[in-house]
């Protein structure tokens, strides 16, 4: 842990079965009423969007944008912002997974400030509040409903632009497990492993702090206990709520403390080989932990103490996560993803310059990362 840390949480969080019903009250309390909803086609078709719209009594629906794709990109954000502007919307509502919520954050930026999205690329470029926004996650993994990040794909230049500002965080997050029960087992498992990655990596990050560690520990506990249940029985509301909370807590933790090596590798696997983010994070996590734990002191010792009452540290945690991957029917070897061994050096090179490497608890260059990838192959 560094001798300096900050912690910031601007989002009101409401959690529990049926809390969707509270949404209109909070929108109206913000003294805004023209809502523009941002979502994707799947949620439009499976009835989730209808369910959300049906509770919005007293609120005007300015419009619905349902074109968000898994990797939202600049042109899409600008299109949604233009449409939202034309409808005179004054409140943004994101319903969906991380991509929908990140898209809405970026739309909020363009809608509130004008100009092009790329004008705000960088760090510290958004220094005053944006318009009000609420986020309703329908997956339990990214924690985007509370983070100060928005990742948007720059298709021309083949990388994800990171927008970072406390003002990007939604004003309101509603964690209603009834909206996640239709999530299929594979997506439940992968998004849950993403949340575990946020929790574990923020716990040992070079920017971590006591608040982030407390939240990350709680998130890990919830995930180890509830992810297999949520995967096996999608309609288990208690497990679904626990996973939404875990994702949320881990989101708050990593929004403040950042992530590490498994995320750097997952970003590279996503960019170069289109491996889904949660799948890649889960797969790389045990191998990254083993690499990071081979130093004194083992940075995971404190975490295994809190979670399992053992000072065994990284080796133990890595084994537990591999078991969790198997229990959730997720791939645990890169070879299972159809990657060629020849692909690995490019992945290692790309990961070595990823921002997440700079808060990893152990220094690692492209050669080290290649060794980690080979151990995961």
């Amino acid at each position, binding site marked *: 842990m*560094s001798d300096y840390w*900050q912690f910031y949480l601007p989002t009101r969080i409401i959690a529990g079965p049926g809390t969707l019903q509270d949404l209109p009250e909070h929108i109206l309390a913000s003294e805004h009423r023209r809502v523009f909803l941002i979502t994707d086609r799947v949620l439009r078709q499976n009835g989730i969007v209808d369910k959300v719209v049906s509770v919005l009594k007293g609120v005007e629906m300015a419009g619905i944008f349902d074109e968000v794709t898994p990797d939202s990109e600049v042109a899409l954000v600008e299109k949604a912002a233009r449409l939202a502007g034309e409808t005179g919307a004054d409140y943004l509502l994101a319903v969906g997974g991380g991509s929908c919520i990140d898209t809405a954050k970026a739309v909020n930026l363009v809608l509130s400030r004008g100009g092009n999205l790329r004008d705000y*690329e*960088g*760090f*510290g*470029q958004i220094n005053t509040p944006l318009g009000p926004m609420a986020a309703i996650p329908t997956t339990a993994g990214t924690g985007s409903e509370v983070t100060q990040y928005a990742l948007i794909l720059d298709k021309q*230049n083949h*990388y994800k*632009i*990171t927008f*970072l500002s406390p003002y990007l965080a939604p004003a309101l997050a509603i964690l209603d497990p009834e909206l996640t029960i239709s999530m299929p087992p594979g997506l439940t498992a992968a998004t849950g492993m993403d949340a575990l990655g946020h929790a574990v990596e923020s716990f040992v990050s*070079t*920017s971590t702090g006591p608040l982030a560690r407390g939240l990350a520990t709680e998130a890990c506990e919830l995930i180890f206990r509830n992810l297999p249940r949520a995967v096996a029985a999608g309609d288990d509301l208690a497990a679904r709520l626990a996973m939404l909370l875990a994702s949320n807590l881990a989101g708050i933790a990593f929004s403040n403390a*950042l992530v590490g090596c498994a995320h750097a590798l997952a970003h590279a696997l996503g960019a170069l080989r289109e491996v889904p983010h949660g799948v890649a994070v889960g797969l790389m996590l045990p191998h990254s932990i083993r690499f990071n734990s081979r130093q004194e002191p083992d940075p995971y010792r404190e975490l295994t103490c809190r979670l399992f009452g053992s000072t065994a540290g990284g080796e133990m945690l890595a084994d537990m996560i591999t078991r969790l991957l198997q229990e959730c029917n997720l791939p645990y070897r890169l070879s299972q993803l159809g990657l060629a061994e020849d692909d690995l050096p490019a992945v290692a090179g790309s990961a*070595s*310059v*990823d*921002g997440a490497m*700079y*808060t990893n608890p152990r220094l690692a*260059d492209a050669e080290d990362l290649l060794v980690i990838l080979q151990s995961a192959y």
Partner: protein
Amino acid sequence: MGVFKDAEQLYQCIAGMMEICSEDQAMGGKIREAELVIRFVYSDPDSQITVDAKNPAPHGYFTVYRGENDLEPEVVMEMKADVAHRFWLGKVNLVSALTRGEMKARGPIPKIMKLLPAIKPAFAIYTRHLQNLGYQDLLA
């Protein structure tokens, strides 16, 4: 007051170090390949340095400009001069500094991240440069 007593001293230290780096084949070569124009805007003391690796002067792999100029940078980094000083001493984690707001950056950040491994030797060069200038007090 900050580490540097005035802009002149900052230029002597930081721009001076960058000029030494511009002639270093390993480091300069990698920075040249990035073809980036990057501007550092400092406060306390107010000053700015622009590094042009797109159209460098004939000598060196990139050109270092002191003070204001008309170049159009792709990336602009803003920070207190003290943060810059600590950065070049190797004591600042760039990502943490950016997320905490100690540094602000406008433009494509991955291009900067990519250069970080390449500029590592600059930390030692900076320390040596300050010693050569007789600024041991700045290293304390």
